[in-house]
């Protein structure tokens, strides 16, 4: 074998494991999901593999009446819309809370920074399920928050804190806040402090320096944080399940339901693909619009 041929072989061997992993764990399951979404539904669970059907996609928007005609049904769209809205809310609250936290962390000295980063990642050491149950203990009618407020005499009736959109937003924000803090912290920490001094030197006060120098330079981190919070929040399952109490369904619960109790695998697969398309399209639109700015910020 000649030299060029050896090099090609070497390259294939090196790239092979990664390629194999991506194929087996990502491409094949996705294709399988797409395939299932176009198959007939087996009412006892599973799929009728030999039967083509677009019923799952029709079901996203329409309901089949008893006589077989289609009627518009936007219930599923409402759940998807609510998922987008709750995820967006989670992202905004996480940004409002995470930015000051990241800023505080980035301005400490090296020893403190290590401790603070550890503290931010600390919740990951506990199971998500356990942490969501902890929120139930805090938010329920006779939970820590309500009983404290009642003991203080601020309220006489317990506030409805659990099993609503509020509880889901709180839980999601709590779960995904670290994904906002860490990328913003990373981009803030990279900022050359001399730029801040230069801004002060050129008559910008603290607020102006923040708005004109620090935030634009932290922009890539802020974008990364928003994506890292919004995307997983959109597909979250446990938090709306536990804190929403079955009343505040999100798209993740809907998908889970189709593969479980409803025994409608094709519809579950179609919902999953719909969510994936939604996320990828919005990311692509965003990237196309802000490409210039993202590249400009170093």
């Amino acid at each position, binding site marked *: 074998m000649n030299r060029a041929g050896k090099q090609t072989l070497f390259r294939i061997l090196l790239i092979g494991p990664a390629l194999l992993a991506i194929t087996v764990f990502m491409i094949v399951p996705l294709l399988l999901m797409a395939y299932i979404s176009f198959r007939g539904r087996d009412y006892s669970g599973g799929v009728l593999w030999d039967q083509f059907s677009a019923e799952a996609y029709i079901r996203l928007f329409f309901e089949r009446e008893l006589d077989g005609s289609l009627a518009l049904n936007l219930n599923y769209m409402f759940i998807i819309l609510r998922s987008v809205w709750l995820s967006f809310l989670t992202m905004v609250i996480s940004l409002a809370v995470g930015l000051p936290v990241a800023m505080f962390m980035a301005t400490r000295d090296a020893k403190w920074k290590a401790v603070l980063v550890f503290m931010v990642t600390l919740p990951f050491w506990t199971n998500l399920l356990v942490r969501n149950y902890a929120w139930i203990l805090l938010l329920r009618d006779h939970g820590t928050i309500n009983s404290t407020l009642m003991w203080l005499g601020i309220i006489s009736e317990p506030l409805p804190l659990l099993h609503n959109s509020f509880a889901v937003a709180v839980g999601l924000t709590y779960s995904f806040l670290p994904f906002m803090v860490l990328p913003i912290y990373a981009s803030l920490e990279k900022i050359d402090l*001399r730029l801040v*001094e*230069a801004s*002060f*030197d*050129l008559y910008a006060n603290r607020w102006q320096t923040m708005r*004109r120098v620090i935030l634009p*330079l932290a922009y890539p981190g802020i974008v990364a944080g928003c994506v890292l919070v919004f995307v997983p929040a959109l597909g979250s399952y446990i938090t709306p399940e536990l804190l929403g109490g079955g009343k505040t369904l999100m798209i993740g619960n809907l998908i889970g339901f189709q593969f479980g109790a409803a025994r409608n695998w094709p519809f579950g697969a179609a919902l999953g693909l719909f969510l994936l398309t939604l996320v990828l399209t919005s990311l692509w639109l965003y990237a196309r619009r802000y490409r210039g700015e993202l590249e400009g910020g170093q």
Partner: protein
Amino acid sequence: MTTSGPSSAQESALQQDCSAVAVRSVSKVFGAGAHAFRALDDVSVEIRQNEFFTLLGPSGCGKTTLLRLIAGFEQPTLGEVLLDGEDFSGKPPYQRPVNTVFQNYALFPHMTVAQNISFGLEMLGRPKDRIKSVTEDMLRLVQLEAMADRRITQISGGQQQRVALARALAPQPKVLLLDEPLSALDLQLRKEMQLELKRLQTDTGITFVFVTHDQDEALTMSDRIAVMNRGEILQIGTPRDIYNKPQHRFVAGFVGEINLLPAKTTGVNEFAIAEGDCLRSSQAALAPIGDDALLAIRPECIALSAPTDGSLAGVVSNVVYHGTDTIFHFKLENGQELRARSQNNAARSQTFAAGDRIGWSVDPASVSVLADDPS
């Protein structure tokens, strides 16, 4: 801009009398307890209006700390800093009529060249049309009109240097602080920028405070130089004073090449460098007769000749040819080695070889009497 009237005229006349920058008994200590580091120790200096003033010293001598105290990035532990006679102690940098050219420029990477230059004017709340015209003037001043809309990452190091300069000059500060602004440039560009900086200073009439560790740069550009070491100012003077009449062993050694000669004081301005060999200086001795003294002579001030009776004598040990001049290393009888620099001139070919006996002499005006450095 000026409000007419006798009071403002008086005021400006008054301001002319004040130093542009007055640093009074300033000390700066970083850290505390056992880790405390005294970066500046009781430093006082008056920088005049429209002066090109240089702080010269090795790294860690406190020159940058002094600059940062004037800019307001640090506050003095003791003492006060006055700008135009006004006490600015405790005021943040954005309230001081002072701008800085940073060592690595610290240009805003998310802005264009023009946006960088207009930043200070915007923050001062100047009217839009004025910001535009001043920015254009500045771009012309540093010859970067064609680059106005480029991003900072798209221009060369030398151009970045000019942008940093234009950005700091645009708000028309009373004092411009320059923190080793030329150190990142290559030699050729550095030489050009030295002349350019001097031209800008003369044209704008702004007081420049320039920090450098490069003695050539300091001698070329400055009206006055302060030589610093270990948090203290050792000598302040014109470049000629600093070069020709160094007062400290450190100043003599740091600025240019010099011969140091240990001697004994034998008279008011007479010193014995060896048995029977005497040197006179135009400067008076610093210690009483009989005490040790330290003399300094620039190599170019020593004249060599054929040995004659009564002249000081030595033996050439090495000859190093440098193109424009030749350095003769020679030894005195007591083993002390000296260097003499002689300019090469084809018409006047006075030359010696290693091993030759020679006579040497020096003008008393060229013999400096040094104080030992404070420790």
